[in-house]
């Protein structure tokens, strides 16, 4: 029964990768990466039981906690970049 779920998760992962490759916008890629992260947590949890070593859930726990940081960093990066660009544009307008 764990096999069925893991296959479903793998298919979902493949679809998420297609979205990440296709883009088109950066936000689509972030969405895909985020989704992929959640699916990895689920896959690892299922596979840990499939292999009969449930003590390896630590890995899933690590992803559940840390995956968030990457997404936040990316968003912060874009926010500050577009703000800086606006700042540059505002300075240009002022100098004209």
């Amino acid at each position, binding site marked *: *029964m764990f096999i*069925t*779920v893991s296959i*479903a*998760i793998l*298919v*979902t992962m493949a*679809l*998420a990768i*297609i*979205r990440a490759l296709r883009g088109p*916008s950066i*936000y*689509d890629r*972030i*969405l*895909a990466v*985020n*989704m992929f992260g*959640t*699916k990895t*947590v*689920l896959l690892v*949890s*299922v596979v840990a*039981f499939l292999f009969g070593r*449930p*003590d390896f*859930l*630590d890995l*899933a*726990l690590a992803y*559940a*906690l840390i*995956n*968030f940081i990457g*997404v*936040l960093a990316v*968003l912060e990066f*874009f*926010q500050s970049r*577009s703000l800086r660009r*606006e700042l540059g544009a505002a300075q240009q307008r002022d100098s004209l």
Partner: protein
Amino acid sequence: MSLFLDLGSWVLFGIGSLLLFIGALGVLRLPTLFTRMHAASLTESLGTIAVLTGIMLQAGLTLATMKLLAILLFLLLTSPTSSYALANAALLARNRDQTREQADRK
């Protein structure tokens, strides 16, 4: 007893797999960013709950169940938050582009 647990797991796994698959299909097929985000975030939460609860039924009352519970809790906290932050950032970027276009037209 274990028959009922197995049955419950099967049902939950079925629901979870179906939801995850539908969500992924939505992310792939829907036309715009916000509709795609909608598909992903709506199905993901329930799908995650279903799959992890299904595993919990199989694990029984062990340390593994506590870890699964923690994973579920963290995922339920972080996943909507990152969806929110993403949607917020995308919306702000779109609004900025629109105001810039309007400013350019003037």
